[in-house]
């Protein structure tokens, strides 16, 4: 269910356009981060050094976008003193871009570890299959950004629930990697790199979940961080 846009309708049309401008920057940043993550996963699965390098070297653009949007939010806070939905929107954006930047960092790690694996003449598939985890994370991030773009609280709730699948898949992969390392200690160096990639993907899932929580905060004004899914649903329903 799409919520009514929280941005338009101010008496000051300039305020509307300032908020719209910030929102567009966040969506652009989200799009870039999503591309970085998908490229990181692609590099990992295909052992593609060219794509891996692009991801590793592309993170600075994400960082500068974070700085730019932060500055825009500070301007709004100082000059408009937003309240209610406007205030929650700005707070949600400030928090969202922090998580987006961290997702960018994790994507950068995927690129770096893949380059190291290629240098060693190795590939992630030698140790574990990251494809399923990659798909889950890619989809979760996409859905989280979509929920943010459409300010869709129901989609945000659904997306948060999916993070459990990622956690389970990550646990399974870790058990698998530990077995590989125990069987042949010579694999430890590269198996650890693969484990760190899995860890990076799992963290991306957590950050995407955080973004969904900010959507719920934006829509309902309730802080639903650090509580379990059931309590979260009850809070949203006002119980």
């Amino acid at each position: 269910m799409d919520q009514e846009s929280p941005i338009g309708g101010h008496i000051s049309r300039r305020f509307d356009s300032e908020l719209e401008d910030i929102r567009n920057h966040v969506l652009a940043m989200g799009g870039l981060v999503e591309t970085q993550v998908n490229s990181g996963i692609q590099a990992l699965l295909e052992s593609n050094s060219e794509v891996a390098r692009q991801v590793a070297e592309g993170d600075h653009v994400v960082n500068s976008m974070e700085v730019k949007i932060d500055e825009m939010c500070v301007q709004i806070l100082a000059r408009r003193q937003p309240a209610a939905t406007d205030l929650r929107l700005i707070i949600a954006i400030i928090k969202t871009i922090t998580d987006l930047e961290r997702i960018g960092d994790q994507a950068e790690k995927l690129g770096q570890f893949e380059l190291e694996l290629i240098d060693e003449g190795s590939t992630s598939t030698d140790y574990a299959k990251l494809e399923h985890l990659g798909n889950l994370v890619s989809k979760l991030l996409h859905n989280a950004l979509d929920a943010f773009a459409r300010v869709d609280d129901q989609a945000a709730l659904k997306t948060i629930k999916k993070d459990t699948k990622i956690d389970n898949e990550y646990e399974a992969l870790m058990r698998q990697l530990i077995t590989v390392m125990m069987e042949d200690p010579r694999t430890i160096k590269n198996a650890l790199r693969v484990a760190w990639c899995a860890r990076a993907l799992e963290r991306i899932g957590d950050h995407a979940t955080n973004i969904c929580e900010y959507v719920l905060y934006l829509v309902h004004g309730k802080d639903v961080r650090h509580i379990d899914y059931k309590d979260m649903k009850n809070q949203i329903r006002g119980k």
Partner: protein
Amino acid sequence: MTTLHETAPVIDAHQDIQFDGTIGENLVENAKFSTRNVNVFYGEKQAIFDASLDIAENEVIALIGPSGCGKSTYLRSLNRMNDTIPICRVEGELKLDGENIYGKSMDPVLLRARVGMVFQKPNPFPKSIYDNVAYGPRIHGLARNSSELDEIVETSLQKAGLFKEVKDRLDAPGTGLSGGQQQRLCIARTIAVSPEVILMDEPASALDPIATATIEELIDELRENFTIAIVTHSMQQAARVSQRTAYFHLGRLIEVGQTNQIFTNPRHQLTENYITGKFG
């Protein structure tokens, strides 16, 4: 205590809104003021519709809303300032400490000593600073001798944060002070008769930001001893000084809540629209 009575704006009763009763925390347990189903009319026109609101002891409650929403009218009904407007009629139950303030046994002059008022424009009497503050205690016979009166004047000026600035010129005319000082003088004059409640109608809207900050700081200090209801057009001021906020719209009390909640997560769409500047 003051003779100032501006004509309150009157709203058009035909311009109706969807209203299903006040939402939020309009009633409290330790009510100083308790008002139920208040209707106020100016002749044929109704300015307030069925407003029920409690004001708790030692709280600052902010009344906000667009012009003509009834917030000033409501405030004025709390110390019967509306009595001075012949066509004004107040209905409903308005109680101060459980006592009906529109009852036959209630003397409006004594009521206004218990419920003081500070207005938008500082309105000192054309008298000395000293006499401005001493006026109320004199007519109410609060001081037995001149030294007691001196003490009341000094304490009131101190509580209003003005004493240091005027202690060497208490004989100078009150009208010679700056706007912010005049407003604090009016607050000192209000405090001098030891009221229980202070009503403030846009007390800082004619002042610069520094004088405004001084008044707001003063409101915060006064809260320890007084109950304060403040009407303000400045949303930031309401957010800064009050513990609870009440939102009026076209004569209806739409929503009341903790100020923290009203400014971060109002429940009624009209409140949301007003505080985010979305009225077109």
